[in-house]
């Protein structure tokens, strides 16, 4: 399937949900003609119409688009590790989860033949503690939910 058609379809779904949700909001009155519903509804209709145009123009175009799924392997793993980091942070705390995240992600992305473990360890330790110290100096809250 073509990328534009997929994008258009996703946008059709989003705009339809928003139109339905906007319909549940109160209408305007004589003081506020538009009310909370009209503006988001107009925008959603605009998005819906443009999405349909995008789908139609993509279907009219000749030729096939090939999807290189193998190109998504490493980016996909990276995103999964990021999600894992975000979800374990409340349980393990900022410092431990950050150290783990940095080590795992660097190990995954570094050259496969010979892993630069010393470099990975130094970067992870140095960066985590530098961030911790800097945040105290600049008065920034870190997501330190537990150590």
């Amino acid at each position: 399937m073509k990328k534009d058609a997929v994008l258009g379809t996703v946008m059709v779904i989003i705009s339809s949900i928003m139109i339905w949700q906007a319909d549940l909001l109160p209408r305007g009155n004589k003081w506020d003609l538009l009310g909370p519903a009209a503006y988001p509804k107009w925008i959603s209709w605009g998005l819906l119409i443009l999405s349909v145009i995008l789908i139609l123009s993509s279907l009219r175009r000749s030729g096939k688009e090939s999807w290189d799924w193998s190109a998504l392997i490493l980016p996909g793993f990276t995103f999964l590790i990021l999600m894992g980091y975000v979800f374990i942070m409340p349980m393990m705390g900022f410092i431990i989860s950050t150290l783990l995240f940095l080590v795992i992600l660097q190990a995954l992305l570094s050259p496969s033949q010979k892993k630069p473990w010393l470099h990975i360890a130094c970067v992870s330790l140095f960066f985590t503690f530098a961030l911790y110290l800097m945040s105290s100096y600049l008065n920034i809250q870190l997501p330190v939910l537990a150590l």
Partner: protein
Amino acid sequence: MDVFVSALGEVFTARIMGLMTVGTLAGIIAAAIPGFTITMAVVLTLPFTFGMTPIEGLSTMMAVYVGGYSGGLVSGILLGIPGTPSSVCTVFDGFPMTKKGQPGRALSLGVWASFFGGLIGAALCILLAVPIARFGLRFGPWEMASLIFFALTLMASLGSKSITKGLMGGLLGLLLATVGIDPIGGRPRFTFGQYNLTSGFAFLPVLIGLFAVPAMIQAVYEIQESKRKGETSAESYVPKNLAIPWIQTLKEIMHQWVNVLRSGIIGAIVGALPAAGGNTATFLAYDQAQKFSRRSDEFGTGIPDGIIASEAGNNGVAGGSLIPTIALGVPGNSITAVMIGVLILHGITPGPLLFREQPTLVYGLFIALVIAHFFMLAIHFVGIRWFIRVAQAPKYALVAVVLVMCVVGSFALNNRYFDVLVFTFFGLIGYILNGAGMPLGPVVLGLILGPLAESNLRRALMTNPDPMLFFTRPISMTLILLSLLSIVYSGLQIWRAGKRKKYQKS
């Protein structure tokens, strides 16, 4: 004059000078790394300014912004890989000059041109922002709504390869901005029962997600490709003891003052226009320099004229694009859209009223803009030899470190874990939209200007229910006509390009 002196006193403190030094350095380093953009530099450093006073935070961000515009030249000249998209033209002559054995000359020409081009942009910003803001005071809600419509359509149509996708991006941004409390009636909308969504999406986590995650995933994709091909780092022509002839090149720049002035002005003007950014400015400045040069056929072979035009044009944009941002509160591109966010997060609403209500702060911003250029020059003097090492730093470490900074930045705004989840969600959305070829600039512009657009539109109709006023009030009508023209013009351009392609195929 009193305001200016008081602004000087506020900016010239040891703490602000120190923060600006760090900010400029951060901007230069971020932009020197290929694949990192100025927008990302601004977005990632912004959370570190939350604990500062407005003038401290804004001066620091101004330093990051200025540093970012000049940092791209380092990897462009020494590695042939532009650090930022707006330093592409610098590579045309900078890299050949390096290959000829003159990397120091190319770098110093680039730095001087950035410095002078940036100062020209800053001077134009200071000169023009005040009269434009004064003109902006005449704007009622009709004009403000039309102005936002104009900025959005211009960015969506001229700033994108596909008008449909550009407009869709703008509408998506506007739609995302409607989540949360309705700006007039105070009623929650589209919160889906989520208490955390009552105040809408905090735009910093959204910005970080939309800009940083796709860039990092792209970097991961490049790592994967280089792993597959078994490539190592880019070929370097840089000698170990890099000599930089600063004085000699300053003389060269002085001889080319017309080129510097022309390119700086082009950069500032292009920067002030909505939808046009550093890329357009550098190409235009480079093209004009080639047309006016006696050595036009030598462009692209490593001559100083090309480097000077490109860098002066690129840095002129920094000051130019701040004109509509500060004076009217309407950003012209995604970088200034983020800068508007910076102002809002520090409790300042940009626009014509800012000049009347907080003149000291406005002048403070102008002073910071000028000083940041001197910091940029000084930091390049001292550290330019080291920046190339940063540009060559292993990407696997950079990606991991930047993603942690994204998480910290998202959390730091409201100290809410929910914002970290918002960042992750919008990171995924940004990656998908980017992959599908939807420009992210209009999404961000729509998100930032959305509440302003809605409140002005509704306020206009509350003042007078006649919608025809949008088309009969002269300024509003002109802006609407210009918006429609931009869509038609862009459509024609795309249609012509398609026809040309078909003709070439046949």
